[in-house]
């Protein structure tokens, strides 16, 4: 399988601390790849480096073979790399309708048009409605995002990334903070993603990880600890020790 996203000896130092320490990761096209590890292992930092929110201290990032290490965030998105945030990063004053419309409009390259009125492109409107329906947001589409229930905001967070039509999607704990009975709604939308979309998932909930992932990488103290198929990683006593160690310390 071709590699969709790759990092080569990626490093990020904050002062003297190596938050990400020589991570070389290859994610195959169409993979459902999970990145797990105890708190503070550097998982979110890796996502921030991949999406250009942070610049690496050294190392390279390749998207479908192209070096994107120096590319600005918005250009990476246009190349098909989208993400969600562990803590919602939404436009609180926007309605879900505007939020998704914005992302679709930017993807179609019409976001800078300053004379056209919204709603004049039927293709855009149809996709907009389709996405709102898929993410169960039609009943709140005219409401202010900041006033929505947390579960709905979480759905919007993911819908916003999907609206970018990514080739590679980075999900940072998509179900974080969502009550148990609302989780299935979010996980179902994630599971229903097209097979050719490559997904990198950061997740703490091992049930979600093992039901979703076909490959798992374990990050400990900023370095890649081990990688393998779910059953291998699940059996690995060292991984258990890492997690047990964390829960004992906690």
């Amino acid at each position, binding site marked *: 399988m071709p590699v969709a996203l790759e990092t080569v000896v990626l490093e990020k130092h904050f002062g003297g601390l190596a938050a990400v320490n020589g991570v070389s990761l290859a994610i195959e096209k169409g993979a459902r790849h999970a990145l797990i590890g105890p708190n503070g292992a550097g998982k979110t930092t890796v996502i921030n480096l991949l*999406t*250009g*929110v942070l610049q690496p201290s050294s190392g390279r990032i390749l998207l479908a073979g192209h070096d994107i290490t120096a590319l*600005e*965030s*918005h*250009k990476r*998105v*246009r190349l098909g790399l*989208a*993400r969600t*945030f562990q803590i919602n*990063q*939404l*436009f*609180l*004053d*926007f*309605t879900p*309708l*505007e939020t998704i*419309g*914005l*992302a679709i*409009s*930017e*993807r179609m390259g*019409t*976001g*800078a*048009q*300053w*004379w*056209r*009125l*919204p*709603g*004049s492109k*039927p*293709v855009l*409107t*149809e996709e*907009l*409605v389709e996405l709102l*329906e898929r993410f169960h947001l*039609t009943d709140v*589409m*005219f409401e*202010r995002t900041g006033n929505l229930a947390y579960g709905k905001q979480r759905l919007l967070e993911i819908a*916003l990334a999907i*609206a*970018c039509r990514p080739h590679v999607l980075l999900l940072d704990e998509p179900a974080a903070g969502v009550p148990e009975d609302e989780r299935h709604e979010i996980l179902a939308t994630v599971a229903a993603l097209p097979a050719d979309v490559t997904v990198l998932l950061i997740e703490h909930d091992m049930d979600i990880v093992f039901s979703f992932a076909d490959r798992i990488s374990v990050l400990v103290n900023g370095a890649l600890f081990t990688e393998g198929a779910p059953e291998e990683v699940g059996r690995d006593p060292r991984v258990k020790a890492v997690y047990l160690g964390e829960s004992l310390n906690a």
Partner: protein
Amino acid sequence: MPRAGSGSSVASPLVEKVTHYLQTHARWGVLEYVFWLAAVATIFVLPGRHLILTEIAWLGLFALSLDLILGYAGIISLGHAAFFGVGSYVAALLAKHAIVNEPVLALVVSGLAAAVLGFATSFLVLRGSDLARLMVTLGVALIMREIANQIPEITGGADGLQGVIMGPILGMFGFDIFGHVGYVYCLGVLFILFLIARRIVHSPFGLSLRAVKGNSLRSALVGISVNSRLIAVYTLAAFYAGVAGALLAQTTAFASLDVFSFERSADLLLVLIIGGTGYLYGGLIGAVIFKLMQDWIASLTPQYWQFWIGLVLVVIVLIGRERIGLATGFVRGLAGRLFRRMAPGVKPVTVAEGH
């Protein structure tokens, strides 16, 4: 081969509903018509007040310009007079040296000159905190003022640029001493530029500006080129400010260093805060209130004008919110309800809801 387009397929009710919403939510509210009809009515009803109304018109345009960057893109400025001043001097120089005799054309040239400065200095406001932006914009205005001061052979220095003779508008309507023509001219320019601004803020570009203002991190991560949008709106706002300055120069046939003054930039922020940011009418309403209040208080107690305006500012901020953009939550909430939602997604904020 007939094309199987959207025309043949039946759109779902939801698609129709959303399309209808998107196409109609930017329609004019009743009070918007009332506002502009009232403005036009002043031409006939208040002929004796055309001089102060002229000042209100260009100040309103100037404040509208600031609203474009502050209300829609979140860029705060204490040096917007830099662009106003450039527009002012360029308009006065064009007329004085008979380079462009026709005022409307000169107005456009003046606006473009200010836009060039806006584009050149936009790179300074892309990054940094609000404080950094305040300082940088303030600095640019101070620099512009000093440059104008140091080239008296061109600008007239501290004496100002005198001997400006304005040609007739469109070659037909000469400026009269009572300011009637000047007022109709300013109001017309304000209305046209308002219409353009209104169209722009409702466009996809306008939506992306509000996105950048709301969350620039996420904006970049949905593919918005944050910097290029900010550069574009800053340049546009500079054009508007330049036109406002040119209107002042053309209607008074004079330009002086005080077009660049710090007080002008600071007053402008005040005007916009009085009226409220982010719905375009804030600058216009603020200009009306500010000028009338200034006129009224100055006629009562000329020496205490600064005291009263200071008090009003403190009260507005205390009653409103700690955030400057929402400082006039009350006015905005009221106006927002009255004007329907002119800036979609910008929810009118009521004072009671504050934290």
